[in-house]
């Protein structure tokens, strides 16, 4: 079953084109990594799919229905987003923040049911933040806060999860923790996941498919092995790289080097 279907998507910010014709199909249960340089349109693509931008031309369909025709509350039960910026200005407790993930299911003056509490608790146990429930969201470390925000998204009981740079500003142990979490959501729960990532190696190690964006267009799409190739990466990022293999996972691994050695590598070619 096709979960997300995008055809001829164009997005402009004040006459400046950001996405120039994206065609994409994401099947149910896929774990798609979206990579590409700054300004290539990764976040914009995510925001268009999640319905935050409605100023686009072309068509985006979620589960066969155009994004413009989804009612927001209905869409929020189908698709959840972990935004890039998770700063919160008020001292909500972690439990209160995760409970907000139930708001697409609750009406005014309606109390949470046992089911709501149950979903919230499972989401928090899954992301290992249940023991943080009475702490203020603003006292948490970056990794803990990210887990809490993911728990909020899971409390929406979505079929599709979108994440915008879920591991930036995190230490490496927390980066692995977050991606482990996503991988088990993907394999155990069959959740369709789209994650924008700056970290090409992490994306290659975890995602079943990578999409490389360049200047608002899809440069290439395929398995990590097909995308993390030297000529592809050098073409888009304009910097010499070495591609090795992660000895543990066998996934391609990208290495960088100081500019003074660039000539050396070039010479070896």
């Amino acid at each position, binding site marked *: 079953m096709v979960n997300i279907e995008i055809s001829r998507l164009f997005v402009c910010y004040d006459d400046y084109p950001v996405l120039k014709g994206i065609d994409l199909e994401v099947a149910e249960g896929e774990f798609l990594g979206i990579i590409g340089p700054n300004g290539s349109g990764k976040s914009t693509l995510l*925001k268009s799919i*999640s*319905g*935050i931008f409605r100023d686009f031309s072309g068509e985006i369909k979620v589960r066969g229905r155009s994004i413009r025709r989804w009612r*927001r*509350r*209905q*869409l*929020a*039960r189908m*698709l*959840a*987003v972990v*935004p890039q*910026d998770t*700063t*919160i*200005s*008020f*001292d*909500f*407790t972690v*439990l*209160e*923040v995760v409970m*907000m*993930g139930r*708001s*697409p299911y*609750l009406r*005014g*003056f309606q*109390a*949470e*049911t*046992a089911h709501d*509490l*149950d979903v919230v*608790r499972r989401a928090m146990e899954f992301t290992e933040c249940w023991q943080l429930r009475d702490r203020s969201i*603003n006292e948490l470390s970056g990794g803990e806060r990210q887990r809490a925000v993911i728990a909020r998204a899971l409390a*929406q009981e979505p079929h599709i999860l979108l994440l915008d740079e879920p591991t930036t500003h995190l230490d490496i142990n927390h980066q692995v923790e977050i991606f482990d979490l996503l991988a088990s959501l993907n394999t155990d729960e069959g959740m369709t996941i789209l994650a924008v990532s700056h970290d090409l190696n992490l994306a290659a190690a975890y995602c079943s498919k990578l999409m490389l964006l360049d200047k608002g267009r899809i440069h290439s799409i395929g398995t990590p092995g097909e995308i993390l190739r030297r000529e592809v990466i050098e073409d888009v990022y304009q910097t010499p790289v070495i591609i090795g293999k992660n000895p543990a996972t066998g996934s391609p691994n990208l290495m960088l080097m100081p500019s003074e050695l660039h000539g050396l590598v070039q010479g070896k070619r």
Partner: protein
Amino acid sequence: MIYEYQKKFYRRWATVNLSLLIAVIAGAFLALSIGPSRTSLIDVLGVFLGERTTTPEWVSNVILRIRLPRIILAIVAGASLSVSGVVFQAVLGNPLADPYILGVSSGAVAGAALVTVFGIGKGTFGQLVIPTVSFVGSLLAMILVYIVARIGGRVRSQTLLLAGVIVNFFLGAVIMLLMSISNRELHEIVYLLMGNLGYVFSERTIWMLWIAGGLTLLGAILLLWRSRELNALSLGEESATQLGIDIQRFRLFLLFIVSLMIGAAVSLCGLIGFVGLIVPHATRMLSGPDHRTLIPAAALSGAVFLILADTLARTVAPIEIPVGVVTAIVGGPFFIYLLRTRRPGYI
């Protein structure tokens, strides 16, 4: 588990709101008994328990005709200003927002001054024009602040405060222009600028107090109804959208309700500053940031705060000082304290 969570929520809700309700009643009785005419709490109780035979008529007149409307006005204005502050802070995602600082109250005053100067606000119909134009004025000021302060979907403190300064300057100029072309209406505008609860209601105008009170109550109930969405909105526009809220429509709904509440209060009592800043902050320490508890709690504590501030204003000096002076003297330093101590994340 569900039991534990809900018990905790309801217990906190009831504890906070019931104790504040008791504080409002106690504060009101205290304020009823204090004033230039010497009366005691016993007199107040006497008047309310119907023992009018034992209380002299002048005492019941002072308490029921002079002090009671004033205290009800304090309750209405305190509740509406502090609930407006709560809503502003949620809409802008910024705890420094307040209708006075952002120039929204000035918008309401400019509206009222406009009507006063052009002499439309006379007669029963005219008295309805003043709050209506105040409402329009505060709505326009709010939209202006919002457009100026919002950059890329986020409202930063710097731009927000700057927007407030600009809108306040602009509306200040409008109000001064109106003052300079006015004659006998000058003192009415000055009265609005100073912030005062001494509006004298006659038998024929007392209904304005009931309308203001009714609008405030209605507004608070509507906001309570949408309080779950207010919680989501205070996480930021993007998070709220993806939690299923139609931000555009919800924001319009909120701005409309809040303008109505501010217009109703300000057209009667003028510029009373910082209530929308001090009270929500103090209340959050008791109730937490959950709007389901915060909205009623902020309404009640706004009422207590303004009753006490006004009692102080009536009694501290040999002559009555405007209550706006009292709240600004307390509020200015409090604002600086907030500005200096909030965590760097959101200032």
